[in-house]
């Protein structure tokens, strides 16, 4: 199974990391969309399992969660979809989700089962390093890499402690806020990348509010090791629900534009 380490070592440009909610808008369409993203040049996938109360997400991802749940998505089907994706291509997969779903499944069993399905890491949006002890040992035991978030208001000493706990990459939040497309890249993000580069060698992948090829390019210029694009991509799904078959090609086209922008580096 391909690791983050191998992926970051091979790439000559920042990793392109699109985010999808598994099963959005339905199981089969979701698989076709994600396949198209892989073919168009995604280097790593960030995948969400829909939750009824996603407090870290803005309206676009909330709606995607609701669509996926309405389309019958659940934990068992999410695992099945991940296996199908991994059978299509061995691409690293990070899950981004909320703690209650893991807790109900049984933390150790969740990590073991999803590692076996082909997941490389699980980032829990509502679990900070203060409670990392609840998950770090079982994650390690399952062979998963660890990923935690750092935000522009994280103090430097705390950032160091977070970085020490990340074996995969640091999910670097570009702004103060929830997920969602933005016109402008946050002016907090360049200084944040610089601060983190000075304290850690762990790859720095930037997400939240990254919406255009220009945003991706400027993050690449600022030294990001990966760019995570979520809401802008999920919005393409939302805007084309009346013609689901057209979505994969539209997603592919957008991803190619991003890829081109970060390869210019």
């Amino acid at each position, binding site marked *: 199974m391909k690791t983050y380490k191998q992926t970051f070592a091979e790439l000559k440009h920042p990793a392109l990391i699109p985010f999808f909610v598994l099963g959005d808008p339905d199981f089969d369409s979701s698989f076709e969309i994600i396949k198209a993203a892989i073919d168009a040049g995604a280097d790593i996938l960030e995948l969400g399992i829909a*939750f*009824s*109360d*996603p*407090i*870290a*997400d*803005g309206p676009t991802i*909330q709606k995607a969660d609701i669509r996926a*749940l309405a389309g019958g998505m*659940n*934990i068992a089907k999410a695992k099945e979809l991940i296996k199908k994706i991994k059978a299509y291509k061995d691409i690293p997969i990070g899950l981004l989700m*909320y*703690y*209650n*779903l*893991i*807790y*109900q*499944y049984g933390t150790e069993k969740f990590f073991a089962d999803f590692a076996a399905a082909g997941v490389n890491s699980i980032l829990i*949006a*509502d*679990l*900070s390093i*203060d*409670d990392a002890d609840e998950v770090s040992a079982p994650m390690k035991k399952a062979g998963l890499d660890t990923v*935690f*978030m*750092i*935000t522009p*208001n*994280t*103090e430097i000493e*705390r950032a160091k402690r*977070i970085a020490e706990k990340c074996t995969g990459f640091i999910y670097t*939040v570009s702004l*103060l*806020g*929830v997920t969602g497309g933005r016109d402008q890249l946050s002016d907090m993000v360049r200084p944040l990348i610089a601060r983190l580069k000075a304290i850690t060698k762990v790859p720095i992948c930037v997400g939240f509010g990254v919406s255009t090829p220009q945003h991706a390019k400027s993050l690449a210029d600022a030294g990001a090791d990966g760019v995570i694009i979520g809401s802008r991509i999920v919005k393409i799904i939302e805007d084309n629900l009346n013609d689901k078959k057209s979505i994969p090609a539209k997603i592919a086209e957008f991803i190619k534009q991003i890829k081109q922008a970060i390869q210019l580096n």
Partner: protein
Amino acid sequence: MKNNGRFGQFGGFYVPEVLIPALEEMEAAFYKFYKDPQFVADLDTLYNDYAGRPTPLYYATRFSELVGFKVYIKREDLLHGGAHKVNNCLGQGLLAKYMKKTKIIAETGAGQHGLATSMVGALFGMQTKIFMGSIDVERQSVNVHKMRLCGAEVISVTGGTCTLKDAINEALRYWTSNVADTFYMFGTACGPHPYPTIVKHFQSCIGTEARKQCLEKIGKLPDIVTACVGGGSNAIGIFSAFVNDKNVKLVGVEPAGKGIATGKHAAPLNAGKVGILHGTKMYLMQDSDGQILDTESISAGLDYPGVGPEHCLLRDNKRAEYVAVEDDAVLEIFDIFTKCEGILPALESSHSLAWVYSQKNKLPADTVVIVNLSGRGDKDVDIVERNKIK
């Protein structure tokens, strides 16, 4: 954080990283000021002169005759704003002032916390935003109007079930984007640490007063103390003074809605499973995957899928007993109690009265029960009328 905010296995602070600095700041400020003589004196003045504390402990003569034992009512319904919520809002508002915050936000279900926050926002001259589920905006329109009169902006939340849980989701999201200058005035003894501790502290005046008043009036402690439990702030407020009095039985009353067996209720301590939502580990209404379930209760203020972490511990260690009563029993007691005593109880508080009524002629005549009448029922008159017509 100084403290891990745990009550046994419950509690904690399960929040996105971006909120950690704000919670740390709040925890530090709380521990710095809550015993500070100036802060304590300021809060006492506000409690007494603004809110109307201490509230009476009233012996309900006719209701006592009806049920066959002695019922005392802790009159939190007489407070300014009509409910216990003002205790917490004055405490947190003063804390916000000491922290030099100029903007406050809050979630609200029944609108009582939203109203108390709006009053305190006006009192301290702070810009106030209230997040409220669109269904609650409709069923508690009088409170919405009062909030706006106090100068607050009321934001109607349409996500999810359009009730309290969704209002909290939206308030948390807003706070995430505005953490630097905004104080989140959380309404109940739930949510991430330090809120359960802070809210309990500011509501503990209810129990401290009630215990003292009871000793003064009858020369002994009560046999039973009962309160309704949604998030659990009024209950933890009155329980806190009696927790160490081993012979005082504590009874929390959850909303059984249309009945526990129907699944249409909001009684996680009776029928939930341990899980994590809104920053805390607690008993929670959820399906087998961990998706949060819709709740149902005639009282908007109790319509929440989780419950404060300290109540979860009191349940597990059996120090308190948690029962549930259905909407029908609540409507019945609203009528009975009002006709008996000339006091309109809030539908929330009517839950604890309904449990007391269910004990009619079952307890010895010298039994002393204190009911925390957490709020007045004026806001519920329309709902009660509508449900009568049906």
